[in-house]
Structure formats: C-alpha cells, structure tokens
C-alpha cells in the first residue's frame, strides 16, 4: 500500500525568525519574505535559537504597526501577513484564474497538492501607458508589470485598465478577422458583433471576479520576489483589505455596475467607430439614439455596391460568374447591402456599362502610342546575349510588352535578334549608328529645344537607339541636341488647335452676320422700291379719276358733233 510521503508543514517546523513572514504563492508554494531586508526566499530561514521562543504575532504586529505607509501595497501585504501569521500558514489550495471557483474535496484543503508552477510566458507592451507591460503566464493568467518601478499587480490598476481592455478588443477582433479570412463566408459585421459580445462577456466575468475579489486583486509583488507570488487567501485578508481601502484613496471603482459596463462599451465602440448595433446585442431599446443605423436608400445601396466593385479592381469586361467564383467581393460587408443575387447582378451590369463607357472615352482621348517603344525599352532592360529568342519568349511571356497584340511575334523575334546581334558589336559602331539615326531625324522633330525625356518616337522605337546603354547614350544624345539649330519657324506659326478653331468659328460668325446684313439691306431696298411703285400707280389712278370727273358742256357737244359727223358720212 502506498504511503503518503507528505509531512504536514505547520507543526514540526520551527517558528520564523522575527522580520520574516510566510506567504503563499498562487502556485501553492510557501515562501518567506523579510520586510526589513526586502528579500524573499523559498527556503525557510533558520531562526536564531534565542529568538524563536519570543516570536509571537502580537509582538510582530507591534513591531510593524509602526510602519506608517500602508498605502504601499507591498508594505500592506507584508503587514497583513504579519498581522495574521497563523491563518497565513494554513495551506490553501490556490485558485487559478478565478474562472472556475471550484474547490477541491474538503480533505484536499489540508494539504497542498503538488501544483504545476505557473510561469510568465509572453509579454505585451500596453500602448498608451508606456513603461507598463502586460505579462501572460503559462496558465493564461496575466498581470500588469511596471519595469521602471519594478512593480507588478494581479489586479490591474485603473489607469492601465482601459488600455488593456482596448488591447483585448483588438486581439479578439484580429482573431475574428483571421477566422473570416479562413472561412470567408460569414460577413464581417457579424464577426465584429461576436467579438464585442465576447468582450462584454469578459467584462461581465471581470465584474463577477471583482465582486468576490479573487483574480484582479491588487497584490504587489516586488521584482525580487517570484513574479508569480500572490495572495489569494481571501478569508484571511478580509480585515486587512478593508483597512487598506480605508487607508488609501480608492484607486478604482469597487462596484462595476451594469451601467458602467454599458457606458464603457459604448465609449469603446465609439472609439472604434462602430455602430451601437454592432457591439451591443442586447435589447435595441437601450441603445442611444440613431444606433439602429439609418436605413439605406436604393440608390445608396446601389452606389455602395458599385464602390465595392470599383474598389476591388474588378475589370468591367469580366463575366459575372468569374467575379463571384473569385469570391473577393463576397467577403466585403458591402456585398450584403443588396439582398438578392439578381439585384447584385443588375447593379453589376449597370456598373460595368458605365465603366466601359468611361474607358472607351479615355482611350479615344489618348494619343496613339507606338507599340514598339515599350517593347524596345523592355528589350533593353531584359534581353542579353545568353538567351535565345524561344527562351526569352518563354521566360517573359507574361510581361505586357510581350503580350501586346499590336505587335506580331515575328516582328518581336526579328527585333530581338537584331538587338542581340548589335549587343555583340563594338561600341564605336554603335555610337556611329546612333549619330546616323539622330541625323536622319528632321529638324521639326529633333532640335535644340527637344528634351532628353521627350525624344521623338522614331528615335525611341529604333534598335540603334536602344543598343547603347543609357550611361553612354544620354551624353551622346544631349551633345548632339545641343549642336542642333532651333526649331524651324513653321512650328511657331502652327497654332494651338483650339485657338485656331475658335478663330475659325468667329470668322464664320462674322461672315454670317455680314451675309445677314446684306440680305436685310436688299430686302429694305426692295420694299422701298415697291412702295415707290405703289405710290406711282396710285398717283396715276388718281389723275385718271380726276380727268374722268372733269365733264363739261364742251365735252358733250363734241361728242354729239362726232355722232353727227358719222351720220353725215354714212348719208353720203
């Protein structure tokens, strides 16, 4: 039968020498601390023979009651340990993280289990409060540590608390983000909400813990001590704790009520620019005003979706199936603003039509560039004598100059071969060829006003130009350009297209005006002539009328006479 090797520690051990106190580390180990020398040790200090008998708690209390500053947690810890050494020596099963709160079987309380040791595992700098770092232990607990003051606290101080909460939220969101990348199907908004929910949960847990004061208890452990040392014996500490709180200013709210949490969450949510609906999944009536978000109009949703399409650099020429299969846009929260696939497709169609129109317009405006120029530049950059054309083509078949449809493969091959053969020629020949090329360019294109950056395309697209490397070529070209004449006068005369156009239009307008004036004048003249003619006719008629009105006796007689004459003639 197995026999326990355990020996109860309290009774057979000799009492501690004065100044030493016994403490319980969270791992279950007892350690000893000397307030006077500020040292701690796991080995039980051997007492001087004479002193042992004298040692009693009250004496030590009196000794340490003289310590004035109990606000210092380290001092307070030591002091309270002194104050109640018997209780302190009682083995107590440490509680990890305060999460479970389960106690072992009652008999287990009497002796410490062989506990695994907790160790600091990783540390994170707390952004915002610089010297402070957050240390995570092997068992997932954590404490705040100030390396400057060499002080660490299980209960995180108030001033660091907020930053740590921010940090928590951030890490949870990162995790959530990683998950989103992993499965890529659930919308991010939901993830964020989940993250917020998790944070809230944690907060609530924290609050619970604070209520029974187990985990985030403020226990200072100086650097010389084991980092993990902490006191959890709440039963023993109640009195001292109360006293401590009375002594010092209260550094943190003891009661962390539901409203506080809600407020803090809101503040945090505002910091992250989240909508209240996204971090609080409680009842929506408690949200501040406008939290539900403004309902999006149809135009807004469509524009959002179009923005999404534009942002992901999707080609407007691509088929819809390809876009969906690629699945890039599916992860974006804006993807869900449109609820049905049909609506999405319609918006995509509209968007692609618009984009294609824009692209076409832009291309029409763009000047035509010689496709040989980029190819030649590419050749100069990549081609060398060691590569045959098929190898070169295979190697760079993905490059845009090699894929350009405006050039055929035959032409490309021809230029490649020419270029490579030129690379083997001596420099002098190449220079001579280059000057010959430059000389062949008319003065209109190449003159002393030409810049090295804006050489005419005839030059840039020539094999002779690229076969010299830029270091030797540029001075040569510059030198040649400086010897040239200024550009011929004709060029100055050629006006800007728009100016000419406007002048032409103006001339046209003036001509039109003159035409109009001429027509009007003619019309006027015609009218005047007509008027005069009408007057003349009128006058004539008037005169005739007047003549007709003038009937006298002589007129009648003469008529009668004429009749008589006729009669007499007929009688004869």
């Amino acid at each position: 039968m197995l026999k326990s090797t355990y020996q109860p520690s309290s009774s057979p051990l000799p009492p501690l020498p004065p100044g030493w106190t016994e403490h319980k580390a969270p791992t279950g180990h007892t350690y000893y601390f000397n307030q006077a020398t500020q040292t701690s040790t796991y080995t039980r200090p051997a007492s001087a023979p004479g002193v042992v008998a004298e040692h009693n708690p009250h004496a030590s209390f009196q000794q340490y009651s003289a310590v004035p500053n109990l606000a210092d947690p380290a001092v307070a810890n030591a002091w309270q340990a002194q104050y109640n050494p018997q209780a302190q020596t009682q083995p107590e099963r440490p509680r990890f993280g305060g999460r479970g709160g389960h106690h072992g079987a009652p008999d287990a309380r009497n002796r410490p289990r062989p506990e695994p040791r907790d160790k600091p595992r990783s540390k994170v700098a707390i952004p915002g409060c610089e010297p402070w770092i957050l240390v995570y232990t092997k068992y997932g607990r954590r404490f705040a540590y100030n390396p400057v003051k060499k002080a660490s606290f299980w209960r995180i101080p108030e001033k660091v608390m907020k930053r740590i909460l921010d940090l928590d939220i951030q890490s949870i969101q990162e995790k959530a983000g990683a998950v989103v990348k992993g499965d890529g199907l659930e919308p991010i908004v939901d993830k964020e909400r989940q993250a917020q929910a998790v944070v809230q949960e944690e907060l609530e847990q924290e609050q619970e813990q604070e209520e029974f004061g187990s985990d985030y208890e403020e226990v200072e452990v100086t650097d010389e001590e084991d980092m993990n040392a902490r006191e959890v014996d709440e039963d023993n500490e109640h009195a001292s704790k109360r006293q401590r709180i009375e002594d010092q200013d209260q550094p943190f709210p003891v009661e962390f009520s539901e409203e506080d949490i809600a407020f803090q969450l809101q503040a945090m949510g505002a910091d992250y620019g989240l909508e209240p609906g996204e971090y609080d999944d409680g009842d929506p009536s408690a949200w501040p005003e406008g939290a539900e978000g403004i309902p999006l109009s149809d135009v807004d949703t469509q524009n959002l979706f179009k923005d999404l399409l534009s942002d992901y650099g999707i080609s407007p020429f691509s088929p819809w199936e390809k876009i969906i299969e690629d699945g890039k846009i599916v992860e974006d929260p804006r993807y869900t603003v449109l609820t049905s696939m049909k609506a999405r497709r319609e918006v995509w169609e509209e968007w692609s039509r618009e984009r294609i129109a824009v692209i076409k317009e832009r291309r029409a405006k763009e000047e035509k560039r010689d496709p040989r120029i980029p190819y030649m530049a590419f050749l100069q950059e990549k081609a060398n004598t060691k590569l045959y054309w098929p190898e070169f083509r295979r190697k760079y078949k993905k490059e845009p100059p090699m894929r350009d449809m405006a050039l055929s493969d035959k032409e490309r091959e021809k230029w490649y071969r020419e270029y490579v053969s030129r690379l083997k020629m001596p420099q002098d020949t190449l220079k001579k060829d280059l000057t010959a090329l430059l000389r062949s360019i008319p003065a209109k294109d190449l003159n002393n006003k030409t810049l090295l950056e804006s050489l005419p395309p005839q030059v840039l697209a020539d094999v002779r130009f690229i076969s010299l490397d830029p270091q030797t070529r540029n001075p040569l070209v510059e030198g040649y350009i400086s010897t040239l004449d200024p550009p011929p006068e004709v060029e100055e005369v050629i006006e800007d297209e728009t100016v000419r156009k406007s002048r032409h239009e103006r001339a046209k307008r003036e001509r039109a005006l003159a035409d109009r004036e001429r027509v009007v004048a003619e019309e006027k003249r015609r009218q005047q002539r007509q008027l005069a003619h009408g007057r003349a006719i009128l006058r004539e008629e008037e005169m005739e009328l007047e003549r007709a009105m003038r009937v006298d006796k002589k007129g009648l007689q003469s008529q009668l006479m004429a009749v008589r004459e006729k009669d007499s003639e007929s009688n004869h």
Partner: protein
Amino acid sequence: MPAIRSHASRQKKPPEGFEDIRDDLEVFNIKMKDAQNTPTNNVPKHQAQWPIFQISHQRSRYVYELYYDKEAISKQLYEWLLKNGYADAMLIAKWKKQGYEKLCCLRCVQTKETNFSSTCICRVPKAQMKDETQDVQCVSCGCRGCASSD
C-alpha cells in the same frame, strides 16, 4: 514534316480591344480544357458532356453581352471572335429571336431528334410545369429551364 497550319484567318491579329477581354477568355479556355480532360468514368453517359455545353454557353453569352448589351467591343472584334470560335454564332442567332432569349443549346430546340417531335423539357416555362417542385435537368445539356418567361 511541316507544321500544320490552321486557317489563314486565325493567323490574323485580333482587332483593337482584344486585350481587355483576353484574360477572361483565357479563363474560359482553361475551364473548357479542364472539362474536356476530366474523366467521365463515374458519370452517366448522357451527363458526360454537360459541363462542356455549359462552358460553351457561358462563353457565347459573354461575347454576346459584350457586343449587344454593353457595346463594349467593336464589330470587327466581335466578328473576329466568332470566326475564331470564341462564341457560337448559331446560338447567338437564336438569342436574337423572340422567345429564345435564354436558349441553352441548339439541341434543345431541335424537334426532329425527339421521340414526340417536341422541344426539350427545359424549354417549358416553369409556370406550365405540372410538378413545379421537381428540379428537372434536360438530357442534352443539363439545363434547368431556359424559357424566356422564367
């Protein structure tokens, strides 16, 4: 042995604007090759060619929409594409007719090949189907319904 040259027109350079759609057409090409190379051992015999019909339909539709709906490509390019087999000109000809706007494949309107000299089941509008819940795929190309009213 001399290299086998295809038709002279295929040697011709594609017209302007082909660069825009080249990558997407290449994707279709790859898909088609994959579909052709997948073994059909475990597939029912009538289903073996469904993916090929589907990809061919998608590609034709793509070219058709680019030219007729979005007017994104020029007439020259459209004709070049048809000539080079990027789209099925006969199928596109059908799409221009009323009632055939969504036709899946030419076989499905070929009445002479069927037992009751009627069109394929996929040409029947959903509204006229007796059993609407049943998901029918046509035998020739796996179409689930291509009536214009669907």
